[in-house]
């Protein structure tokens, strides 16, 4: 199994009441989408996240089908509003 750190920001941190969680997904073929599924199962409040949130993997925006590896950091990002 791969252990992935999941981080929640801004409104998503409020929704889940959580800033960071560790989830485990199968080692070889898991994607950000799989991480998101695990999060919905294990983090209370995560069910109210949108179906396809913006996500980042290791500090870069990625699509939900990006592959994850042990030690990766996935972040779930509300719509960006910097500037």
């Amino acid at each position, binding site marked *: 199994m791969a252990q992935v750190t999941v*981080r929640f*920001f*801004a*409104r998503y941190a409020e929704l889940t009441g959580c800033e960071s969680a560790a989830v485990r997904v199968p080692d070889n073929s898991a994607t950000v989408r799989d991480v998101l599924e695990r999060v919905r199962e294990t983090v209370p409040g995560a069910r109210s996240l949108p179906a396809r949130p913006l996500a*980042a993997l290791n*500090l*870069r*925006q990625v699509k939900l089908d990006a592959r994850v590896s042990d030690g990766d950091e996935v*972040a779930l*990002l*509300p*719509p*960006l*509003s*910097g*500037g």
Partner: protein
Amino acid sequence: MMTHLTRSPISVASLLAEVHSAERGGTCVFLGTVRDDDDVTGIEYSAYDDMALAEITRIVDEARGRWPEARVTLQHRVGLIPVGEASIAIAAAAPHRDEAFAACRFVIEEVKQRLPIWKKELRGDGSEKWVEAHDHR
């Protein structure tokens, strides 16, 4: 070197000093400041710091790739920013003004699209509201 994310008021003079030089005769600066829309008294900015810094580095590198003679820098402020104060400042200096304007404009557009930074509006009546759509400031 300045830090690109700061919790303190932004100094335009420091940004100018960082990009200016005697061979760069045109400098364009953009400042985004908190507007007094509706009953807004301030905006609380929060960031995914590590990713924001990584994106800023990538954006600055891309600008340098497009305009090799230009130098650009930016500072984004986070934390509570009162109405009227700057949340972002960008400075772009180049030998000629076309590149200075273009590089500055490029950076603000990329910042708005790519930085993992979020705004929560604070109102005079004590209410708060996440800003979820791009504004067009």
